[in-house]
């Protein structure tokens, strides 16, 4: 990929995170949190988006972010107070900002009308005079100063070929000091100006920051004159391509404040030397320059001092020191009374081993400059009590606190996947090894067997840790939902409050990616079908605003996602009527409330009389159910008329490993997920009854549950297994339905690595996936839920047949 594109991609990745932070901050604000830290966090997020956008010249985005940011700034400074109305506008503005980011990413464009409307709304929050004062009516940045450069400095001494390299370099060094002095004296004009001395370090380039972008950004603030100092650039044969040799002096004229200027350097300030001072303001300037009394003698002296440590060509140094006073005393273009360590600006940090004299001198100057700069900070802040400086310090401190909390790295997901795959293979291999050892007849207490046990524990731990790498909080999915809810609610004209719970519940990344669609669908369904209109709610004595609760929690080694509304609940007679009308059930079928509720998951079922835009496109909940089942998950519904309904879907935490019970049926080895298993028992012949002469049920204590002969259900054999000769495993499906699986024997409990059957073969009903066992054979993993529901669904069909 083009490196520039990859930087851009990183920016958009960061944007995602920033937008997420922003939204959670705004949601907190909507809930009434007007803490300055929250507002600051939102401001920072918007500001960082704007800053990054500036580097890539995304003008539309910058313009909108600027207005947004200004409004937030008003809040930060307590000129604008948080109200419900304000929070709602800000939330909608965040949606528009997200649209802008998305448009910038895909190269599309944003609905101009919506943007303008939003800008008007934002402006509406601030009173007009103030808005004009802040320049909110125009565009935020002042472009077009790029081409205004006064002069081109020419390093004269280089034009004369020289015999001796060190001398040339010394001359170059001198030229560096004199060149700025030769600049036209166009200093103090009417407009206030900033003088910025900017010297990037190699690290800055290494981090893919680019001087050009910084300069371009600076040019947005006003008229700029850029002077590049090329003196430190060595000849080609001594040049290290990734060192930084150039430095720039930029005079910026315009209304920009110091913090505006500093903002430009925000992303690079740690990796460059930066001096910002008022042009032609001796006091401010002197605060930035050496605080020594006699710079003419002192600065060179410190250079000598520092240089003395290094083995140095003394002559060259002497030449340097002798030449020093004149250029040092010559005022640089800023017309500053105090000398600026100009030549040092471009000193390379080269390896002393292969450095020439000039390099050493530069190093010496570097040392003196460092010395100077070390002394500078205290002087820097005191003379200019800038209220914004405090705010900035606060901000950086807060940012530092945030980053210090959780140091993270970005890793390509592919690498993690490879690792997980390898660990999966390791687990299989380890199981195979154990089995070999066991088969070889070694005693269980032998050293080898004991060692293997340790190995197993270790393997397990590695596996858990690896899985934890990929585990992520469901937050990333949940955070997209508030916007969805706002939009859907607007569309159907209902008032909805979304309450989210358990956003930090962690689940494997592969699962997270696929959670979004079902959740989206369930939320839409809850708002469109579940909640009543405000009028209906009022009539029913409920709060006008409906509540939809989205929650995630861990339960029994699975993640459960619940979508609950406080709406009208499922209209059972109607659901039943529709099911009968569509021929999904027999007219006289006897169904429990729970069974009626679950009818909405049947394919082709839709209760919406009118097909709406939002849900009820005729695909309905059966699609949700299928997509969840494809993940090894289940969905169920509970509902209470006029109180609301609750959808819960439960998914495995990972799609990579599973704790299972290894069983055999019809000479096949199968794995039943342990999470489904309640208990196992040996059936007695007298407990098994046949219903309708065909379907077996087994009595377990005081209840009857269907007895499913696994060998037959999966088509391994045609003759039923005599119940007494097998083992019944009592399983529970997610919907709470129980069944007993009849198998021939239980082999044991084992953790298995899931290999997708869909990816390698195709979906088979009743089989969730496959695994490779210790002996190298493939074993199928049972889809217990499918087996149980199949047995259940058979019931209506039989009734139908009997009714005919």
């Amino acid at each position, binding site marked *: 990929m*083009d*490196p*520039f594109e990859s930087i851009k991609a990183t920016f958009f990745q960061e944007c995602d995170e920033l937008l997420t932070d922003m939204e959670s901050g705004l949601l907190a604000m909507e809930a009434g949190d007007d803490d300055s830290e929250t507002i600051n966090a939102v401001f920072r997020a918007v500001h960082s988006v704007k800053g990054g956008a500036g580097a890539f010249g995304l003008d539309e985005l910058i313009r909108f972010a600027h207005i947004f940011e200004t409004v937030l700034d008003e809040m930060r400074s307590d000129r604008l107070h948080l109200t419900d109305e304000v929070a709602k506008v800000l939330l909608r503005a965040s949606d528009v900002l997200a649209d802008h980011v998305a448009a910038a990413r895909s190269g599309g464009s944003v609905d101009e009308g919506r943007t303008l409307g939003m800008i008007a709304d934002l402006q509406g929050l601030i009173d007009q005079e103030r808005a004009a004062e802040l320049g909110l009516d125009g565009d935020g940045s002042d472009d077009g100063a*790029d*081409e205004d*450069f006064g002069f*081109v*400095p*020419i390093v004269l001494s*280089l*034009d004369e*070929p*020289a015999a001796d390299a060190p001398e*040339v370099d010394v001359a*170059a060094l001198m030229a560096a000091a004199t060149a700025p002095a030769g600049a036209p004296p166009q200093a103090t004009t009417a407009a206030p100006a900033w003088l910025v001395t900017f010297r*990037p370090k190699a690290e800055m*380039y*290494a981090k*893919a920051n*680019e*001087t*050009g972008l910084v*300069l*371009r950004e600076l*040019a947005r603030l006003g008229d700029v004159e*850029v*002077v*590049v100092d*090329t003196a430190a*650039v*060595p*000849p*080609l*044969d001594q*040049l290290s*391509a*990734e*060192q*930084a*040799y*150039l430095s*720039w002096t930029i005079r910026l004229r315009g209304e920009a404040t110091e913090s505006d200027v500093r903002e430009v350097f925000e992303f690079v300030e740690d990796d460059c030397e930066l001096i910002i001072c008022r042009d032609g303001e001796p006091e401010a300037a002197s605060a930035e320059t050496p605080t020594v009394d006699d710079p003419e003698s002192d600065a060179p002296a410190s250079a000598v001092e520092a240089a003395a440590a290094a083995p140095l060509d003394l002559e060259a140094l002497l030449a340097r020191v002798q030449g020093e006073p004149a250029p040092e005393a010559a005022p640089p273009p800023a017309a500053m009374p105090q000398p600026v360590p100009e030549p040092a600006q471009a000193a390379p940090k080269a390896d002393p081993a292969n450095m020439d004299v000039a390099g050493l001198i530069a190093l010496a100057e570097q040392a003196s400059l460092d010395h100077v700069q070390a002394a500078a900070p205290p002087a820097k802040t005191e003379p200019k009590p800038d209220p914004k400086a405090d705010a900035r310090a606060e901000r950086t401190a807060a940012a530092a606190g945030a980053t210090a909390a959780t140091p993270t790295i970005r890793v390509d997901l592919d690498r993690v996947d490879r690792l997980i795959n390898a660990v999966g293979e390791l687990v299989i291999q380890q199981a195979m090894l154990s089995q070999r050892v066991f088969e070889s007849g070694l005693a269980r207490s032998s050293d080898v067997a004991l060692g293997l046990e340790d190995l197993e524990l270790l393997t397990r731990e590695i596996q858990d840790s690896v899985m934890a790498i990929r585990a992520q909080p469901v937050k990333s999915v949940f955070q997209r939902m508030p916007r969805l809810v706002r939009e859907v609610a607007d569309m159907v004209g209902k008032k909805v409050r979304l309450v989210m719970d358990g956003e930090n519940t962690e689940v494997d990344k592969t699962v997270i990616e696929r959670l979004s669609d079902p959740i989206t669908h369930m939320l839409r369904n809850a708002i469109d079908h579940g909640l009543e209109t405000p009028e209906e709610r009022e009539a029913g004595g409920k709060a006008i605003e409906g509540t939809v609760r989205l929650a995630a929690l861990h339960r029994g080694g699975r993640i459960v996602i619940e979508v609950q509304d406080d709406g009208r609940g499922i209209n059972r007679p109607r659901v039943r009527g529709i099911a009968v009308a569509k021929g999904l059930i027999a007219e006289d079928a006897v169904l429990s409330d729970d069974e009626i509720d679950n009818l909405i998951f049947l394919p082709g079922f839709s209760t919406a009389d009118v097909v709406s835009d939002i849900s009820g496109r005729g695909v309905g909940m059966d699609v949700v159910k299928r997509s969840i089942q494809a993940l090894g998950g289940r969905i169920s519904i509970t509902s209470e008329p006029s109180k609301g309904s609750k959808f819960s879907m439960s998914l495995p935490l990972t799609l990579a490993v599973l704790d299972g019970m290894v069983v055999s049926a019809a000479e096949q080895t199968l794995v039943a997920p342990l999470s489904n298993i309640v208990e196992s028992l040996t059936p007695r012949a007298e407990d098994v009854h046949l219903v309708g002469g065909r379907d077996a049920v087994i009595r377990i204590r005081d209840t009857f549950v269907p007895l499913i002969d696994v060998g037959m259900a999966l088509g391994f054999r045609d003759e039923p297994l005599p119940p007494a000769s097998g083992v019944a495993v009592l399983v529970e499906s997610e919907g709470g339905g129980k069944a007993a699986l009849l198998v021939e024997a239980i082999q044991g409990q084992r953790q298995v690595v899931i290999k997708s059957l869909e990816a390698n073969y195709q979906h088979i009903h009743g089989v969730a996936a496959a695994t490779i066992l210790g002996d190298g054979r493939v074993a199928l993993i049972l889809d217990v839920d499918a087996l149980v529901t199949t047995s259940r669904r058979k019931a209506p069909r039989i009734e139908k047949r009997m009714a005919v």
Partner: protein
Amino acid sequence: MSETDTNVAEVSLCPVLDLQAAEPLRAELMALRGRPLQVDASQVSRLGGLCLQVLLSARMSWAEDGLPLRIEQASEGFLEQLAAFGAPQIDFEPEGASL
């Protein structure tokens, strides 16, 4: 300066002169030292600080050798970005010399 009579060397700059282009560019130019140089900047869409250094360093070396170095057909982007960098001089024309 023994090779002054050799043919003019030509280098075509790649479109994106960023961090990663700097070292290859330096090596390429180094190999051509001692010959008059024409640098074709027509393809350049992005000029970074590091490559600018390489070009300036090349200018210095060529000046040392007394050989001309010319930027030819500079693209708009190249000129614009060069200007943003303070428009340092890259071309070098020794007095009385001709290609």
